[in-house]
């Protein structure tokens, strides 16, 4: 024994981690957070009241055979797209991280890029290319082909949604593979298992949480998507709700259908939460990782490459080609770009306001949720995550009802549209801000307190400057997602306020493809910005 005391773990000082120890949550955080949470819950609450007010008629709508048919359609679409997304995403993730696929880094990026194509842009490209009297048809017509396989309905909607959402699975599984300790796989090989046995018995079980998380995003997307199903004319909930809302004088059925859709979404979330179990057993942290010995593909090299190329051709090259083709044709025919310019300005204005508002609203919620963990903070934080579970058309519908009934002067104004964006996309701002707050050690704030500053002063002079990157990232994310948002913009956009999204949708749904091309290209380019950041941060620390 030496004179030094035995070493002891000092990373978690006693009396800090995980204990509800702070003096209660301060009012300067609770009050704004409560206001924000109330704003988030209000529209849905009103929708429930509104549908409930219809009493037995609401039940009749919900139990109508047509409603059940739509429920079946929607569930089928979500299931097909979820399975399809996993079927594309998992092999692509494995090929680009664990094998000697030629050019795997390039494929990794190209296969993720379809994420930047909004589904209504992709849907428009599919209709323009593969639909009746589309580009493929006109090429094949001289060869005597006068009918292509039916695109409209389930096949087209499922294809479009799968091709533009599988990157969610690819990205989550890829980062799980990159974060996984290769020693596990090496241990399995060392114990006499072949590469295939190792993949099935060691790697795949480790990946299950990541696959589940990615597929969940895909399924939620399929449930809430409006653009692709509308353009490809598949009667899932979002399309039917919109048609109901547009056509009928009585809007109660739309409200009831919206609630059934919310219920379906909640069921999906509940099932996922229950089957997830103790997720995240893969190693996610940073730290130094050894490069993995890539598995040789052997004679499967070229089929694997063709698979990657095929996905990229359908999900990326095809839509871009269609857009550029119609852009050139439109310009040649004298299609004015001025309309696109106006629409872009309108989009930027609405999305910018939403981004600023969401960033401001996210800060108290995030600080409260991280620093003052308790029942109240958890409830407020959870309320703001409601937007994740609410399809855009539902939020829009709720705000329409609410606006007409209680906020007449706001109805058909920009304010209501911005509010809808915030309700839908606040979770993104809270998430980004929250992870920044988590990186600020509580001791820094306590140091500021002990130096004589009050809680609000500490928030302004210490916490806010330190979490600025997260706040800005959250705002940027909200801005770019709002730029792409379609259903709420359609329902709530003020009259005579065309945005990029509504311009594309309006033109594409009436087959004025040339008019849709310029705004579509602009949106795709804008959406590429956050993905570039995302891909760059994921590549850091990955194998060379």
């Amino acid at each position, binding site marked *: 024994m030496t004179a030094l005391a035995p070493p002891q773990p000092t990373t978690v000082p*006693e009396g800090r981690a995980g*204990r509800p120890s702070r003096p209660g949550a301060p009012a300067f955080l609770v009050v704004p957070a409560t206001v924000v949470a109330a704003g988030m819950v209000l529209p849905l609450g009103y929708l429930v009241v509104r549908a409930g007010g219809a009493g037995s008629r609401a039940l009749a709508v919900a139990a109508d055979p047509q409603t059940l048919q739509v429920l079946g359609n929607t569930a089928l679409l979500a299931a097909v797209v979820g399975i399809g997304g996993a079927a594309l995403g998992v092999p692509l993730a494995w090929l680009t991280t664990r094998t000697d696929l030629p050019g795997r880094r390039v494929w990794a990026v190209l296969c993720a890029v379809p994420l930047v194509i909004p589904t209504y842009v992709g849907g428009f490209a599919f209709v323009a290319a593969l639909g009746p009297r589309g580009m493929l048809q006109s090429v094949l017509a001289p060869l005597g082909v006068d009918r292509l396989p039916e695109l409209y309905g389930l096949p087209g909607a499922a294809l479009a949604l799968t091709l533009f959402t599988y990157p969610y699975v690819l990205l989550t599984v890829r980062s799980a593979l990159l974060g996984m300790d290769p020693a596990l796989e090496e241990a399995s090989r060392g114990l006499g298992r072949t590469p295939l046995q190792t993949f099935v018995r060691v790697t795949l079980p480790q990946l299950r949480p990541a696959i589940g998380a990615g597929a969940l995003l895909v399924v939620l997307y399929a449930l809430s998507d409006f653009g692709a199903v509308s353009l490809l004319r598949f009667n899932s909930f979002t399309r039917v709700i919109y048609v109901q809302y547009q056509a009928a004088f009585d809007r109660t059925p739309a409200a009831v259908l919206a609630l059934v859709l919310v219920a379906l979404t909640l069921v999906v979330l509940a099932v996922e939460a229950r089957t997830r179990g103790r997720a995240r057993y893969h190693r996610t942290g940073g730290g130094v990782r050894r490069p993995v010995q890539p598995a040789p593909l052997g004679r499967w090299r070229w089929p694997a490459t063709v698979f990657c190329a095929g996905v990229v051709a359908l999900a990326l090259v095809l839509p871009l080609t269609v857009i550029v083709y119609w852009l050139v044709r439109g310009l040649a025919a004298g299609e004015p770009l001025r309309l696109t310019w106006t629409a872009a300005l309108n989009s930027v204005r609405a999305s910018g306001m939403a981004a600023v508002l969401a960033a401001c609203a996210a800060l108290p919620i995030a600080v409260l949720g991280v620093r003052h963990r308790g029942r109240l903070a958890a409830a407020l934080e959870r309320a703001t995550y409601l937007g994740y579970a609410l399809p855009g058309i539902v939020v829009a519908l709720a705000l329409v009802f609410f606006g007409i009934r209680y906020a007449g002067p706001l109805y058909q104004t920009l304010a209501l549209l911005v509010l809808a964006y915030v309700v839908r996309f606040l979770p993104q701002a809270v998430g980004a801000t929250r992870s920044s707050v988590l990186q600020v050690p509580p001791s820094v704030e306590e140091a500021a307190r*002990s130096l004589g500053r009050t809680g609000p002063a500490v928030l302004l002079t210490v916490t806010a400057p330190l979490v600025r990157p997260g706040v800005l990232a959250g705002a940027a994310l909200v801005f770019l997602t709002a730029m792409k948002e379609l259903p709420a913009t359609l329902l709530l956009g003020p009259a005579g306020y065309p945005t990029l999204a509504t311009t594309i949708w309006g033109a594409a749904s009436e087959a004025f493809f040339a008019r849709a091309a310029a705004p579509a290209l602009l949106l795709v380019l804008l959406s590429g910005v956050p993905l570039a950041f995302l891909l760059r941060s994921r590549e850091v620390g990955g194998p060379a």
Partner: protein
Amino acid sequence: MSDAPVIRARGLTRAFGTVRAVDGVDLDVRGGGILALLGPSGCGKTTMLRLIAGFERPDAGTVEVDGRVAAGAGAWVAPERRRVGMVFQDYALFPHLTVARNVAYGLDRRRRPDAARRVAEVLDLVGLAELGRRYPHELSGGQQQRVALARALAPRPAVILLDEPFSNLDATLRAQVRTDVHRILADAAATAVFVTHDQEEALAMADEVAVMRAGRIAQLAAPEALYRSPADRAVAGFVGEADFLPGRSTGDRVETELGTLALAADRHGAVDVLLRPEDVQLVPATDGDAVVLSREFYGHDQMLFLRLDTGRVLRARLGPVTELAPGDRCRVTVPGPVLAYPAV
């Protein structure tokens, strides 16, 4: 040192769930002194510090700072109004501010010239006068530690609290920084309380050491007194090295395997005698009652592990020179009165 305590805790209690991290503690910290809260991980020492600083609310009991009730008895003073400076284990420097602005953070912004002078003064005190324009990440660990100390000292708090101040430094740096901090606190005539699990640190730095165990103070004493007369067996084992020799005592004498020893205080019945390694004296002797098992050589001294013929293993601290080697026999003697505790 003045007489009125700067910190005065009475019956201080704080529980987390069913665990009483701090359990009815009374503590006085006199002005101008350095007090160490010493204890193993989870003994409640950091919670004690946070109760004084105002980052925890006590479930019971009171804290007074400078004669004013800060917590308890219906009162609550927010941390920013307690005049308690804190140096955190991770230093908690503001990464977005320069060193000078870190130090100025706690000063009155309405009196700018005074603030600038005070910043220069404390930076000079901690020997970083040249580094005011740097950012924290541009400094070494030891320098960051001194900035944290300067920042806490700048507003002239009633007391400075330091949470495991040296645990983030590597061993070679630790001794130097410890000396620096000791000197700075003395120059500033500051009252300080620091938390540590390292008994050597506590003995070297503090005027008084409070040994904490399971949320209570087991003993509060000056370092020498703590080392020479620990209040109980556990404190003796925690502060310094200790071996225990069973014996049977009658008044001021105790019978042990090493013969009859004189007791410092009267005892009766079965006892455990405290033997510090430096109390054990060895004489090489082929007919001795012990054999040397092994030796750890530290340079300035060394530790010999012995086995008595009764089978008991003891440690003896010797100077750097000895003829004894593992395998040699020797005679063991313990001069002077010894301490004994009731046998467990």
